[in-house]
């Protein structure tokens, strides 16, 4: 709450006790209204984050209190090729999946923004991948990409296109393609529906004006839709990148980072080292190493989200 000018206590009230004054102090009251939210954020966000960073500077293991080891964990990681592979995997996964989610999401949004029969139903259907719990859809993909029972292999075999099952999750390249595919399948609805909401804020008369000005459909998109959508694209893609970068569930349910660490992301590697192997300090260091990347992503979107010049200024009519 902004500082509110509080009328000074009248002279005759100045003898009132400090407690009485406090009771009537709006800032004091405001503080107490804020406490629940603050407590929630401190206990569930700030404390774990701080603890994680602290752990990364210790040699804590499960069942053993650690000692401060300064940057030893990070020095280890610096020479750890699996860690660098996970960084590469995470960047590849985030970049490819986000770019495709954006492209497909925008395409779907434009499509759903057209007038067509069963529009409401189609829009609802697009959301289905988003509402299925991640682990359930990951398990479904696990079966779809199974080395023996894969429905894709089965279909292709029956069509006579292949003679042997494709080892989707056993081959490094295929495994990467499969997890990225699953992530896109899950992430597209969020992008599509949010962009659709953005599209609907664009006044139809702008398109009519542009059409009369001589714009083709492509020029309508290029000069009207896209520029007006950029603020929403910045928000959506920030969230999309953050979610993708920190993804854990999908990978863990489908591949557990395999084969030969080809799909290990920083989040899954951290979990494996910290919880499975019990090296809490090292796992925390991997997690903490994600922070600079996430900050960079946030900075990019922060600048992207700056109010554009055309959004500023008074609306004085």
């Amino acid at each position, binding site marked *: 709450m902004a500082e509110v000018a509080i009328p000074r206590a009248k002279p005759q009230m100045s003898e009132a006790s400090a407690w009485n004054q406090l009771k009537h102090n709006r800032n004091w009251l405001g503080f107490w209204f804020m406490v629940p939210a603050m407590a929630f954020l401190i206990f569930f966000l700030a404390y774990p984050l701080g603890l994680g960073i602290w752990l990364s500077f210790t040699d804590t293991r499960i069942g053993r209190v650690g000692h401060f080891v300064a940057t030893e964990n990070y020095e280890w990681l610096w020479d750890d090729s699996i860690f660098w592979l996970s960084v590469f995997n995470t960047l590849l996964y985030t970049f490819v999946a986000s770019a495709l989610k954006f492209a497909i999401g925008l395409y779907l949004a434009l499509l759903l923004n057209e007038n067509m029969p069963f529009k409401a139903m189609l829009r609802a259907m697009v959301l289905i991948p988003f509402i299925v719990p991640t682990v359930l859809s990951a398990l479904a993909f696990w079966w779809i990409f199974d080395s023996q029972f894969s429905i894709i292999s089965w279909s292709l075999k029956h069509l006579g296109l292949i003679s042997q099952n494709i080892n989707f999750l056993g081959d490094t390249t295929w495994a990467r393609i499969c997890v990225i595919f699953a992530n896109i399948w899950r992430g597209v609805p969020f992008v599509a529906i949010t962009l659709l909401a953005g599209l609907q804020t664009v006044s139809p008369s*702008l398109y009519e*004006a*542009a059409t009369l000005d001589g714009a083709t459909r492509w020029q309508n998109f290029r000069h009207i839709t896209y*520029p007006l959508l950029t603020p929403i694209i910045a928000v959506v893609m920030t969230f999309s990148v953050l979610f993708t970068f920190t993804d854990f569930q999908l990978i863990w349910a489908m591949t557990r980072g395999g084969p030969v660490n080809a799909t290990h992301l920083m989040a899954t590697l951290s979990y494996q080292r910290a919880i499975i192997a019990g090296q809490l300090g090292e796992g925390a260091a991997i997690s903490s190493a994600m922070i600079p990347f996430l900050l960079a992503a946030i900075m990019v979107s922060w600048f992207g989200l700056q109010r*554009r010049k055309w959004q500023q200024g008074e609306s004085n009519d």
Partner: protein
Amino acid sequence: MSSVQIRDVRKSFGNFEVLHGVTIPIEDGQFVVLVGPSGCGKSTLLRMLAGLENITSGTISIGDRVVNNVQPKERDIAMVFQNYALYPHMTVADNMGFSLKLRNAGSDEINKRVKRAAEILALSPLLDRYPRQLSGGQRQRVAMGRAIVRDPQVFLFDEPLSNLDAKLRVAMRTEIKELHQRLKTTTVYVTHDQIEAMTMADKIVVMHDGIVEQMGTPLELYDKPENQFVAGFIGSPAMNFLKGHVRVNGVATFEGPNGVKLPLKTAPAASDGRPAVYGVRPEHFTIADDGAEAEIIVVEPTGSETQVFAKLGGEQVVAVFRERHQFNPGDKVRLKPDPSLVHLFDDATGKRMNA
């Protein structure tokens, strides 16, 4: 500049016909106003002219070319929208130059034409601003600037002044009229405001329920409305209507409600006893000893004139006087319509009966 011919144009949305065969000839350089209550089809007609709606049947031609199947951008028309439809992410200059940019005009050419249009509309100091930073009247002018930059065959205006406050609306009305006098571009202007229509038009087209009720110059419509709808729509305050019968026994008179006798100059042929509607404009009443007795209900002075609401034969009528009479509510006065200026309409069809 071009003439525009609208011939027997119909428009249906599904099974619902909204325009029932409209024919409007528009001469080169004319300022035509389509006016009518909301839902009369005037905006639909304008959008068909622009190419934003299909033509169900009939033809629209611009110049010598039938444009039914011509793309909007090839019709060489410019339109000003009610909400202006300015591109929010472009400066005033870019908004105005957008159509030229799409036509791949050189930047020198664009600058030159934008500058010229900006000078005409006094927008030169605002060229680098964004629409959000402009007032309503300035946005309106940018919308017009966007139209005149293109130097089109026809200007279309779709209720361009409805979003402005009353004072600005009057000022912009004059500005648009002046602009038309200067550029002489054929203009089709849609409004529901009959004052806008009267003040701006060379020719008014009164529309109602998808048909043209009457077209003509503003004064033709005011002096000789062809039917009761036009009579009631044009003029403010609206014309008074009194139901009754024509009586011809020696002198033609009109027997109004409760036997009130009202003067007629001549009775239409064979109209004795015919049920009719007597129309008289508020400004055509005078106070005279041989007038019909009326009781004053409300007096509203506006300075230049005084509006008087009165009961005449039990019906409420409005009279407007430029002279300053001393009226008080409850007073009895004798109101006399000017017989040479009254209108007589058929009660059943609403068609004009007197010449």
